[in-house]
């Protein structure tokens, strides 16, 4: 754990000077699809498929600033855990080039694989004590559907983005992206596997822009 903590620190430190010196902020709200199920804990959500469309339940959106940004030398490692035969988190936005580990907390075999165009991989069958923890580097932007060959119902999503500026809204759709570089960009809101909204934004240093996605 200490090691992981150190890694975290080393990943965040290079970003800090930019954020502090000159940065813009975007905040607002994404109109999320109505959830028909009873509200649950914000942290516990899962991927559902409706008519071939994958989305989170309860609905969440990923808001990100699209653009061309210099690729960093290294990126912090991310994790998608298998717990109680679900992926946690069910939806993980990562920057291109991120390595994601798939540790298992279930006392059973899992076989994580993906046939998605953005990333095809097959981790094979492994148990929780498998070391090193099976992992994949996601080097192509796009949506990756995670599946388990053994547990057909399991679904997870990894949204691979070209940008370091992204965040998940809360369940009511509110977001706040800060430390953004000034300039003309497109702000996008990923809502489900087939719906991504976008708005052009003109960011100025020290300014906070309010953008709502209807």
């Amino acid at each position, binding site marked *: 754990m200490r090691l992981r903590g150190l890694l975290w620190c080393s990943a965040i430190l290079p970003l800090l000077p930019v954020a502090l010196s000159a940065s813009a902020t975007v905040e607002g709200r994404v109109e999320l699809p109505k959830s028909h199920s009873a509200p649950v804990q914000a942290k516990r959500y899962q991927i559902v498929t409706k008519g071939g469309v994958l989305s989170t339940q309860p609905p969440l959106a990923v808001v990100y600033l699209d653009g061309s940004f210099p690729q960093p030398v290294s990126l912090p490692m991310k994790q998608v855990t298998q717990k109680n035969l679900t992926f946690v988190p069910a939806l993980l936005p990562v920057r291109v080039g991120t390595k994601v580990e798939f540790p298992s907390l279930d006392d059973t075999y899992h076989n994580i694989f*993906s046939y998605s165009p953005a990333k095809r991989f097959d981790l094979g069958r492994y148990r929780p004590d498998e070391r090193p923890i099976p992992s994949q580097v996601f080097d192509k932007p796009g949506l990756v559907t995670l599946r388990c060959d053994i547990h057909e119902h399991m679904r997870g999503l990894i949204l691979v983005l070209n940008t370091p500026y992204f965040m998940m809204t809360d369940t009511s759709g509110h977001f706040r992206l800060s430390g953004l570089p000034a300039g003309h960009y497109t702000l996008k809101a990923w809502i489900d596997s087939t719906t991504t909204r976008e708005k052009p934004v003109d960011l100025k240093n020290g300014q906070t822009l309010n953008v709502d996605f209807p």
Partner: protein
Amino acid sequence: MNAPDQARDKDVASFRTRLFTAMMIIVAALTILGLYLAQRKVAADAERNLQENFQAELSSLHELEQLRHATLADRCNALAAKSRIHAAIEDNAIDLLYPSANDELRDLMEGEEPPPEQAAQSLHATFYRFLDDTGAVLKPPNPKEVGQLGRKAEAQLSLTKLPETQQIGYVQENAGTHGGGVAEVLAVPIFSTDTGDVISALVVGFKPFQPRQTDAGVEMKSGIWVNGQLHLPSLPKSEEASLSEKIATAVRQLPDRAENNFRVNIDGAPQLLFYKRLNPGSLFPPAYEICVYPLADSKAQLQRLRWQIGGAGALLLLGGFVASHLVALTFSAPVKKLALDSEQNRAQRQRAEAALATTADELERSTRYSADASHQLKSPVTVLRVGIESLLGREDFKPEIYEELSGLLHQTHRLTGVIDDLLLLSRMDAGHLQIASTPVNLSQLIDEWLDDLGALPDSPDVKIDKEFPVGLYVAGERQYTSLIVQNLLENARKYNRPGGRIRVSAHANAAEVVLTIGNTSRTIPPGENIFERFHHNSTPSAASGHGIGLNLARELARLHGGELRLVRSENDWTEFEVRFPAADGVNPVA
């Protein structure tokens, strides 16, 4: 043999011929009817047998299909549940679909191909393909792994849309060329576990079902007709093509009929062809199971039966001939007898008629003779009487001669009376006597005759009682009525005894007048026919007559429509009764 016998025998023979002809017609009709019915039954039976055979064939086919379907459905459901299949389809990784399924379906394709006779029993697939969401075939990256298939054959696997249920189809493996095999394909939908939608379909191809050789001894050919082409390997190519045309026509004419049969000629031999839709309601092109059965067996059976029934008919006819012969004999015996009897009757009648004619002739002759004789007699008697009367007129004879002459004269009078009677009788016998009926006063007539009677010289001493009213009228001719009364009264006097009695009574009732004349006399013995002509008393006496009187009186009474009869003759009393028809409405009714 004489002519009537010959004619009679001819009649009997013709009767027999007619009877036999009738029986022959009936037997022939029955035989024909029997043949017709038997033929129909045999044909129907044969068709039913073949139909049953066909159904059995189909049901075994059906069983196998069920087995395959169930197995494949399970397999596909399992397959559809596989994450990798889903992933491949849903995540647009079609290239990974076949490799993913390869593992799952490996056992289906693996292993040695079983020998043809066991192909039906195994689930050994020869190929499989997936359909995409439009129903088109997904191209396999490595056809070797999924069973190679010609481009045309592969195209036949495509459906217009993804099926919701299992679909059976038949594809020609080498389409367009004869002798190419037919593969049975089963399309099974793959449902998304997430959405429940049909996301794809698995199409598995099998070696076509080879109908087992039946052990029922029925030589049968079976095949499949699909896409307008018949696949019946045991048939020559040319026959296959022409038969295919016929099936196409039959199917086109009755598109709603899933099954039917019709007769065809293959190589000049009659056959019964059954067809049945193998994949009703399928999205694949319609395919039909075809079974062709030779009808030679049933034809032979029919032929045999024809012979049997024909033979039975002939036997029946023969039996009928014998029976009709016997029956004719039996029947003709009475007919013969009848004919004989009638012949005898006729002869008898002819004889009787001849005798009757002779009798009539003789009678007529005798009547004529007696009439002639009477006339011939009358003239000499008249001459005689006139002579005696002239002699009596002379006065120069001795008194005893006068007495003698008067006696002779009396005899000539009697002779004249007899001749008159005979003349009258002969006229009656000849039927020449006509009665001119007028009312005649019978009472007056009787009185006159009684007066005359009393005046007669030789009247015996008899007492006469009269009991009749005056003015009794009868219908008749006075002359003859008078003759009747005279006869009876004369008899009553003549046959009386001295000191005897005569009683004359008469009365009228509604229709007739009854006159009764009784007298004391000797009893007439019973059985003595006193009314017979020229009757003579059995006991000779002085008072015997010439035996015509009573006969004449009765004939006259009958001629008048009346009757004369002897009422009684006993205890010194003899009584006669005459009934005259009464004159209309003039008599006092007693």
